[in-house]
């Protein structure tokens, strides 16, 4: 291009007037005619040579016109200064003879401008528009310019096929339809969606029997797509071999759920073709989770199944399942939901699953791989802190060597921590080391992590002259097990020291229909002042006791678990006197007996030194006579099944911990907390109360595991403090 010098101001006259239309704040599109103009030409505002740009002039012949105006043209030019409307002139730096053009006082609106252009350019209009589009798209885009492009495309683009299926996939949009005008691979295009946005389509094509004239089906992903919802897409424009084409969105198009898009991509890849780069991109996209089990489609010997998946409220996800991977193809297993992820194969405990082995033994695809005869296909894992958000699917992603990820959707239930975790015990052989590992590595941490909602009193029913503010009262906590209330009430009533006291009886809401009516009848008959507390969320007697303590305002409370049975009248009086003897700064507990009068609990004692220091139940199992005639004495911890203590002290330490399976550790935990806060435990040997396991619900092997879990949890929490305890 020749060097063009644009004078600061010219006085060539008369200058022709040209139509123009603004394209954004800084540019205008002008249309005029002259004798000749090069395709690239510098242009500036008359009198403002510093605002010079180089523009592309698009021309057409005007055969009927004078030679001086035999060439029509349009080009971009700098916008005139807004403070001098209508006074603007444009200088085109044609080589040797600059062309001065006077802008019409008022610009044309774009549609009117294009209409005028169409009339002016005649048969050359499409070519001119085509070039104009290139010019407009090449420059820095702005809404007006894009709007101009949109209007231009609308008028020039020819039909180029239809989009029949759309669906979102992360940052991309999946498209499927048919076209005759682009080949598989990477295609630049424009998306009309109210506005106009550039994007790239990575697409493959496939044969379709329902199309003619060389049309092919296509499938692919719109990348870098600013449109988040495919429904906003009105049409796509792309440049084919013969000019711009429009891919219209079929009126009855299908909108896919995001989760199903990878499946459509896989189908497309299976049936269609694409250049390697595109195919690779689409394949990676197709390997995202789409709600389907893709593990079962793997060609390699990898299979997986889920026996149970439970979201433990506020704690995490517990998964019990199996992974059959005899050739160790799986490199990682990740639990995912939305943006949350947890690499579970670093946490899980593998367990024996001979049933999985035998199931695959019969399958010729897997039999040879089983030579190793390993059975540890099962796994149990607690994924902490991963709580699926509503609407977000939960799935396992298996990174399989050589084939990319495969997915296994989970359909988790929701459960309370304790009940969910207890289910695991039923699956374990308590004699196996696996059981211990599962308990220590999965169950105990899960229970400790769980935020278990406290029991909640939902209703209080008072019978008799119940005094909630009494200085001393009895709190009885019932669990879900059947209790002989007739016996309990009679033994309360025949004790003259208890009969005048207010008694709180806290019972689970689930069984209250039965126990409530019976308790009311018995309270009336025996003339007892009773507050019946209906409690939701009771998992054991400690929960009920907790709610019961909170449902009264006694200064001193005598806790009596539903598992306890009164052995003799006078027990409470003697306990309370021992409690008062220590100034009310203690937890006074009696000797607890089994039903055969052997000792269940006679003080919790500290034994060992340093890290070996631990709390032991020293006399458990011995005949009652073994403890002789001892007086009250301080012990490491008391027994929450039956004790007298300050209600305020109970509340100050937060009551019972909920992160244990058994009431034994809960009670121990409570008494140690009270001890740390200045209320040590006092054992009153002369008072005896029965606490009997209910044989009707005993599950020996599960009990062994729950005890192991609780010991593990207790040690984690208390080992250090106990190692430093004196006494």
């Amino acid at each position, binding site marked *: 291009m020749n060097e063009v010098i644009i004078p600061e101001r010219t006085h060539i006259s008369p200058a022709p007037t040209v139509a123009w239309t603004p394209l954004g704040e800084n540019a205008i599109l002008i249309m005029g005619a002259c004798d000749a103009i090069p395709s690239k030409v510098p242009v500036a505002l008359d009198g403002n040579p510093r605002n010079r740009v180089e523009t592309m002039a698009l021309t057409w012949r005007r055969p009927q016109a004078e030679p001086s105006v035999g060439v029509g043209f349009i080009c971009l030019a700098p916008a005139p200064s807004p403070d001098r409307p209508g006074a603007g002139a444009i200088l085109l730096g044609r080589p040797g003879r600059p062309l001065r053009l006077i802008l019409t006082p008022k610009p044309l609106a774009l549609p009117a401008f294009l209409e005028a252009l169409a009339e002016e350019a005649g048969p050359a209009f499409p070519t001119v528009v085509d070039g104009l589009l290139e010019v407009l798209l090449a420059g820095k885009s702005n809404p007006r310019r894009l709007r101009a492009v949109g209007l231009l495309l609308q008028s020039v683009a020819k039909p180029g096929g239809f989009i029949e299926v759309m669906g979102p996939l992360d940052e991309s949009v999946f498209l499927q339809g048919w076209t005759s005008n682009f080949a598989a691979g990477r295609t630049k295009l424009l998306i009309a969606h109210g506005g106009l946005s550039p994007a790239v389509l990575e697409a493959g094509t496939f044969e379709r029997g329902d199309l003619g004239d060389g049309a092919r089906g296509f499938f692919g992903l719109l990348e870098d797509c600013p449109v988040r919802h495919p429904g906003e897409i009105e049409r796509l424009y792309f440049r084919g071999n013969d000019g711009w084409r429009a891919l219209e969105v079929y009126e009855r198009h299908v909108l896919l759920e995001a989760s199903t898009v990878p499946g459509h991509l896989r189908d497309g890849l299976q049936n269609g073709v694409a250049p390697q780069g595109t195919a690779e991109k689409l394949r990676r996209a197709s390997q995202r989770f789409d709600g389907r089990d893709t593990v079962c489609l793997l060609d390699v010997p990898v299979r997986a199944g889920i026996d149970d998946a439970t979201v433990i409220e506020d704690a995490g996800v517990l998964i019990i399942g199996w992974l059959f991977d005899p050739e160790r193809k799986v490199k990682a297993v990740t639990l995912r939901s939305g943006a949350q992820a947890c690499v579970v194969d670093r946490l899980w405990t593998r367990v024996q699953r001979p049933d999985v082995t035998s199931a695959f033994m019969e399958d010729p695809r897997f039999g040879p791989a089983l030579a190793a005869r390993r059975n540890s296909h099962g796994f149990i894992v607690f994924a902490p802190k991963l709580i699926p958000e509503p609407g977000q699917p939960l799935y396992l992603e298996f990174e399989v060597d050589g084939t990319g990820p495969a997915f296994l959707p989970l359909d988790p239930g929701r459960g309370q921590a304790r009940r969910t975790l207890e289910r695991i015990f039923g699956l374990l052989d308590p004699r196996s080391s696996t059981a211990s590992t599962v308990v220590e590595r999965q169950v105990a941490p899960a229970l400790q992590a769980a935020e278990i909602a406290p029991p909640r009193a939902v209703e209080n029913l008072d019978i008799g002259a119940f005094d909630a503010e009494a200085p001393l009262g009895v709190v009885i906590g019932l669990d879900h097990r059947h209790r002989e209330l*007739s016996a309990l009430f*009679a*033994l309360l009533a025949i004790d003259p020291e208890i009969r005048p006291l207010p008694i709180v009886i806290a019972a689970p809401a689930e069984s209250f229909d039965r126990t409530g009516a019976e308790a009311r009848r018995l309270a*009336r008959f*025996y003339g007892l002042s009773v507050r019946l507390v209906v409690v939701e969320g009771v998992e054991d007697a400690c929960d009920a006791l907790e709610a019961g303590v909170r449902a009264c305002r006694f200064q001193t409370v005598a806790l009596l678990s539903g598992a306890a049975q*009164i052995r003799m009248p006078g027990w409470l009086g003697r306990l309370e006197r021992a409690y008062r003897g220590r100034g009310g700064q203690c937890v006074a507990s009696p000797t607890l007996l089994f039903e055969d009068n052997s000792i269940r609990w006679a003080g919790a004692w500290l034994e060992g030194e340093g890290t070996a220091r631990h709390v032991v139940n020293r006399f458990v199992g011995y005949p009652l006579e073994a403890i002789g005639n001892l007086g009250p004495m301080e012990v490491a911890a008391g027994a929450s099944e039956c004790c007298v203590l300050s209600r305020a002290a109970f509340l100050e330490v937060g009551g019972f911990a909920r992160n244990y399976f058994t009431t034994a550790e809960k009670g121990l935990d409570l008494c140690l907390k009270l001890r740390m806060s200045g209320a040590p435990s006092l054992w009153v040997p002369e008072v005896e109360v029965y606490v*009997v396991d209910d044989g009707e619900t005993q599950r020996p092997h599960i009990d062994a595991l729950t005890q192991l879990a609780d010991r593990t949890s207790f040690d984690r929490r208390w080992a250090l403090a106990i190692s430093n305890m004196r006494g």
Partner: protein
Amino acid sequence: MRVLVVSHAHPSLSLGGAEVASYNLHKGLQAADGVETHYLARTGAPTPRHASTALMSLRQRGGELLYYAEDYDHFLISNRATEEIERDFVRVLRDLKPDVVHFHHFIGLGLECLYAARDTLPDALIVVTFHEYLSICHHHGQMVKTGAFKLCYRASPTDCNGCFPDISPARFLARETFIKGILGLADHFISPSHFLADRYKEWGLAEERFSVIENGIDVATVAPPRPLPDPAARRSRFAYFGQLTPYKGADVLIDAVTRIPDAVWGEDSILLVYGGNLERQPQAYQDKFAKLVESAGRRVRFCGAFQNHEMPNLMRSVDWVVMPSVWWENSPIVIQEAFFHGRPILSSNLGGMAEKITDEVDGLHFRAGSPEDLVDCMTRALSEPDLWGRLRNGITRPLNHVDCAATHLALYRRLIAKRGAPVPESRVATPMIA
């Protein structure tokens, strides 16, 4: 002194030994000077009740009340109809204001009645007579193991769970503490036998609160010895009086009868079985019984159930009474009846029977449950010419109901005196409601 005798049933409606004993006490007390006595007995289905009250009269004598109780927990010996106890039983106590409430059993009534008596009448003397081991043993109070009919020597929650695996030791413990707790409200316990008293003491009731007083019987005339057809004839007629339950051992007796050689049994011997309720027993027992009866043939004659007042007449045709119970028994009224009429008894060497019948003095013992041993006894009875007479002469006349009531009265007075309260003054008979 005003006494309320409480019984678990009225003998006119249910003819068991305990009912008869309680009623005899009531009658005996009525005969005593200065005592006003009332009798309250439990009744239940199928007797139709009044809707508005548990109390009824059923046209019994004045001073007698029936109390309807059916909402009953057999395991705990507990009456769930506590509202009726408050409304009706307590009303009777308040109206009568008895000085002594004497429970002659509480089965069906529930221990709550005993509690209500203590609660309503804190100063009244409460006495309980035990008739079997129901407080100790859930197996019908028999202290016989379930299943194999092995004798039970000691109850505990664990042992009882062995008999009833579906009931946990915890529940048995609750039963025990409940029953002991309520029984602890009574002032005194009476047992008709030392054997039964000892069992309760071993179970945990205070020894000093026990007295042994035999039940008194109320029989007017003594049945003479069976007239023999000729002086050389043998005392060869045996009788069984009692229900045909597995515990009573009638099957052992019939088995023994079938084993006695014809040469010994002869043509003159016969076993008369007075009893019923076989149809209520377990099918296996009924089948076993039917087979034995078939084997015994003409040696056994079934006479059906009997009423207590028929006893003197029935005794007329009997030489020996056989008591083959395979459970401990307490103090069966049959023993007193037989002795009253001078009939020696062949009995199991167990519990209350062994206590009440002295071997070789007023009867013979055989090993409980052993038909072979019983065969030996019966063979002696049929073979030893002087045995019947010797044993008959060894019999001590049993306590009658009036003497029995007098013994009770003496006990009441002693206990009241011991408590420091004045002995209630004698009062003439008053209308029912004081």
